[in-house]
């Protein structure tokens, strides 16, 4: 099916390759990089906030340039902070545990949304304390951070290196002077060189250019400048700031070729692991499991080590797929898993000596939604949850919007007459006998019930505890007609071939990249990502890189 779509959409694939959002003047081989960037800049017209028109095939017509919805000033999330500190100090410094986390539930599911990262009263305080935590360490390791002889000149050297990294290309004379004042002030108070370095870092890591992804106002629209684009790229692909190479090329990033080169380099870097893992975690709503998250009486084997291994197995699975240019189809159908001695029993494979890629039983396992980390997240303390699993696939893989249950849903369920030792299907049948409940559960439950062959920890099971057999087959309403499947593998293979799943994935990538919900004027950007998925036969890496080519990513509009 995917191949058919590819053939059918050959034209859109071409469009995707050149983005179709920004209309640049004809590019000639003689143009310099800066000329190309400037040419792109002048071509942008007044921004529109409405969706672009569609052609007779229902595709958005994207030959007229458009601007994205506003992009808000965003405080870095705690994960981004951790990745940033590790990158700034080359892994020599431990990020502070008190840096404020996000607060609340993100609208899109992605933890970098602006709203959930606003600082409160205690958050501002904790930023200060976190800065001091790191500053203390940095001062104690000042000799390792630079080789110059202690003194004011050496402090200035530290500012050049670490200030540029922390402020991500925005180290200007004003910032330099402020940082040196912090150093001088500490010495004036009788402090040592080390103290002065600490004071300097304590300030540096509270500066707004460190804490915030900030872009200059764009009024009715403009392309991002080089530093802004470098920052967007770095936070998208690394969850942290640009490195020296990216900053060195920042002024040339307006050129699509340079942008693509840098994006490709960054995606191939080990620094991409945190961002990639976060995307797949947050998209699939897979928690980082922790000890205590399961009923110890039912899962005595679930301890901190197993939780960590399940987390790492998930990370290895998704990053490996991206690294080898695998497709969305493979993400949903792969039988490869990364297993260590702790997780081997979950998969029912022989224990290994360390981490090892294994090929699993294709009749049971099928990609990311049969990863134990996902199955265990989408479960109760002691049991599997067909409702959680079905709901998450509905919302995250199919981008469905579901309502909330009635207030007395739990009480109604408790009071309902159930057969003895009920199976999942028995319980679903009881729930769906109420038409109000059925309106959602008829769409949720069959999908979730397909995964009943996995228990609350994600281990395979062939029957319920009471001995009743599991029937993972089902039929469920879907766009374009019912979807009938034999089991979870059949379901996931069918989903992997669906156009609505692919389009949803493009939308999810957009939400992740932009840290916000899509707006009507973002339609061309999402279409371009989807077109790339089609043209590349669903390659995950290509889709990620396609985001960076969209106008939503490379331009800014404020009005």
């Amino acid at each position: 099916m995917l191949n058919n779509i590819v053939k059918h959409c050959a034209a859109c694939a071409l469009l995707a390759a050149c983005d179709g959002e920004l209309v640049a003047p004809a590019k000639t081989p003689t143009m310099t990089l800066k000329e190309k960037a400037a040419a792109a800049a002048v071509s942008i017209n007044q921004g529109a906030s409405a969706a672009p028109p569609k052609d007779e095939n229902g595709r958005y017509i994207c030959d007229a340039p458009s601007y994205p919805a506003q992009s808000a000033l965003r405080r870095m999330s705690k994960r981004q902070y951790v990745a940033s500190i590790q990158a700034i100090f080359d892994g020599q410094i431990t990020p502070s545990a008190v840096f404020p986390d996000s607060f609340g539930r993100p609208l899109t599911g992605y933890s970098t949304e602006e709203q959930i990262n606003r600082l409160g009263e205690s958050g501002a305080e904790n930023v200060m304390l976190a800065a001091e935590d790191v500053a203390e360490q940095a001062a104690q390791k000042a000799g390792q951070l630079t080789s110059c002889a202690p003194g004011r000149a050496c402090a200035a050297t530290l500012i050049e290196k670490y200030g540029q990294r922390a402020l991500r290309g925005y180290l200007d004379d004003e910032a330099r002077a402020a940082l040196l004042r912090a150093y001088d002030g500490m010495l004036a108070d009788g402090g040592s060189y080390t103290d002065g370095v600490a004071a300097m870092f304590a300030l540096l890591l509270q500066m707004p250019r460190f804490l915030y992804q900030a872009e200059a106002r764009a009024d009715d629209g403009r392309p991002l400048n080089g530093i802004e684009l470098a920052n967007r790229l770095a936070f998208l692909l690394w969850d942290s700031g640009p490195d020296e190479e990216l900053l060195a090329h920042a002024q040339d990033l307006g050129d699509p070729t340079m942008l693509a080169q840098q994006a490709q380099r960054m995606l191939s870097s080990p620094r991409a692991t945190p961002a990639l893992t976060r995307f797949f975690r947050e998209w699939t709503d897979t928690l980082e499991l922790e000890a205590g998250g399961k009923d110890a009486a039912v899962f005595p084997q679930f301890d901190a080590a197993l939780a960590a291994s399940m987390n790492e197995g998930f990370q290895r699975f998704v990053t490996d797929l991206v690294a080898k240019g695998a497709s969305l189809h493979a993400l949903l159908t792969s039988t490869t898993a990364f297993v260590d001695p702790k997780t081997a029993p979950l998969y029912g494979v022989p224990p290994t000596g360390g981490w090892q890629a294994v090929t699993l039983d294709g009749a049971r396992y099928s990609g990311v939604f049969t990863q134990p980390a996902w199955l265990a997240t989408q479960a109760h303390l002691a049991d599997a949850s067909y409702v959680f699993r079905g709901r998450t696939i509905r919302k995250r893989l199919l981008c469905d919007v579901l309502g909330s249950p009635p207030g007395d849903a739990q009480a109604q369920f408790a009071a309902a007459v159930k057969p003895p030792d009920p199976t999942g299907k028995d319980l679903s049948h009881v729930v769906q006998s109420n038409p109000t409940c059925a309106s959602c559960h008829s769409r949720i439950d069959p999908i979730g019930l397909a995964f009943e062959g996995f228990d609350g920890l994600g281990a395979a099971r062939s029957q319920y505890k009471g001995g009743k057999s599991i029937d993972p087959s089902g039929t469920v309403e879907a766009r374009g007609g019912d979807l009938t499947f034999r089991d979870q593998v059949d379901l996931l293979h069918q989903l992997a071939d669906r156009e609505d799943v692919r389009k949803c994935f493009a939308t999810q990538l957009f939400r992740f990249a932009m840290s916000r919900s899509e707006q009507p004027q973002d339609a061309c950007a999402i279409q371009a990502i989807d077109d790339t998925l089609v043209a590349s036969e669903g390659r995950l890496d290509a889709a990620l890189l396609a985001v960076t080519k969209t106008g939503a990513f490379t331009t800014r509009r404020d009005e």
Partner: protein
Amino acid sequence: MNRIDRRRFLVGSSGALLALPMLESLLGRRAAAATLTPPKRLLIVFHPHGRLVGNLGSDRWSFGNATGPLPSAATMQDPKYALAPLAAIRDEIVTLDGIDNFVRHTTGEGDGHDPGSRTALTCERSLATARDAAAALRPRASVDYVAGLGLVPQGSTMQTSIVVPASQGANATAAVGHEAGGGVGYFRPHFFGKNGTQPSYLSTDPGLVIDKLFGTTAVSPSPTPTLRERLAKRRASTLDEVSGSMRALRAQLNNADRGRLDEHAAFIQTLAQRNQAPEAPPPSSCIPPTKSSIGAWDHNDTTQGKNDEVIATAQIENIVQAFACDTVRVASLYFWLFETPTFPSMFGGNSPFAGNSSGQPFGPWHAAIHNQAADVPSLNTASHYYAAMFTKLIQRLAAVKDIDGSRLLDNTLVVWASDLGYGAVHTDYNVPVVMAGMNADPSAFPQGRGRHVAPSTFAKRRSLGDLWAHALRIVGASTSNTFGETGTVGTVAGAGTNLNAWASYQQQLGSGTPLHQGALDL
């Protein structure tokens, strides 16, 4: 640095003990200490899931159905009452029926849990109607923070309000909510700081709360300050530089982003103020708790509420002494619903809520809550736990002297409330409310204490907005007759918003129901 109590709040925040000089610790005090006029304070006690047992007519929560004196203490002690332990403080309390979360109904959401949690302490409607969208849109600050804005004197560096967890478990102060139900990470926020930001949650470890609230006042000053202490001394100037760099960035931003940065800048300014001039010494009533006074608890096993009585007792003492030391004026004691609580202090080793949760989504406690017929007496006994902790809190507030020799309780309004009305069905009407304190002000409870207040007719039920507005007026934090949304349910909900939640609500109230009707009849 103008308040050592505040500074200690700061230096202890990382969990690291920093020994600041004792002399300094005695400098940062309020003007209240000098004038011997006790400050007014507000303490919110919050437990999850509303009335755990019984609803309306079959209510075990209330001691009676009509306004009037509470029954005798001997009668109240009957364990059939969910609040039986309150018998010991009968003459200090007022229990209320008929307080409803009207604003929750304006969200159009079916299940009362999420909208109840967002609106119970804020009375603010979220703007979206979809469940997830609504969950992500934060309301404005909750009532505790609003009270802090009114009770913390202008120019003071005191924390506006603090939220002190009374329960252990990963959910107690988790910051980010996930969709997956059960287990780690499932969290509904109830308290909100300025503009809906994260409130000042303190640690679930009472020892760390001592560090944070009281620093190391018992420790002699270090002759050679550590690097961290030297950094702490330069905070004011560091924060000044931060403000400067914010101003520079601000000039480049659009208006919306300036607003976001300004919000942060305001907090920076407060932080800088906290790190400047000293104030007066602490009140003589200030006796910071010590870690050795905390009962024994297992730091490695915080599951199923095993340590909760120890934790709650210690946190109660932390709050009481924070009031006595005038470290804070608004605090909340936050009981949170951990995964599978067993209430060991009530059941010993024979909790009906212990053990294997297989076959019971979310565990046996949750199953019991939603299947009331199963074991009402046990649920009632679990309710006694919260009532017992509330009683302990009131007794401690009554035992500790304020700066003028009166009881702390006499100058403190205590309001105990919850996120739901009747937890079993997630309704948001008849939210359980108990009030106490402010005896120094005869107008606070003009009809006296030891009373139950209930609406005479169904239509006379009152809103949480009325309750909170009234509470804010009692402590002098506000003069407004309203709190949160104003108007009627219908005007706040707007056209087209689903009011189906009302269908199960006696059919007597609806979109025309006013969100405020003035002062409560206390």
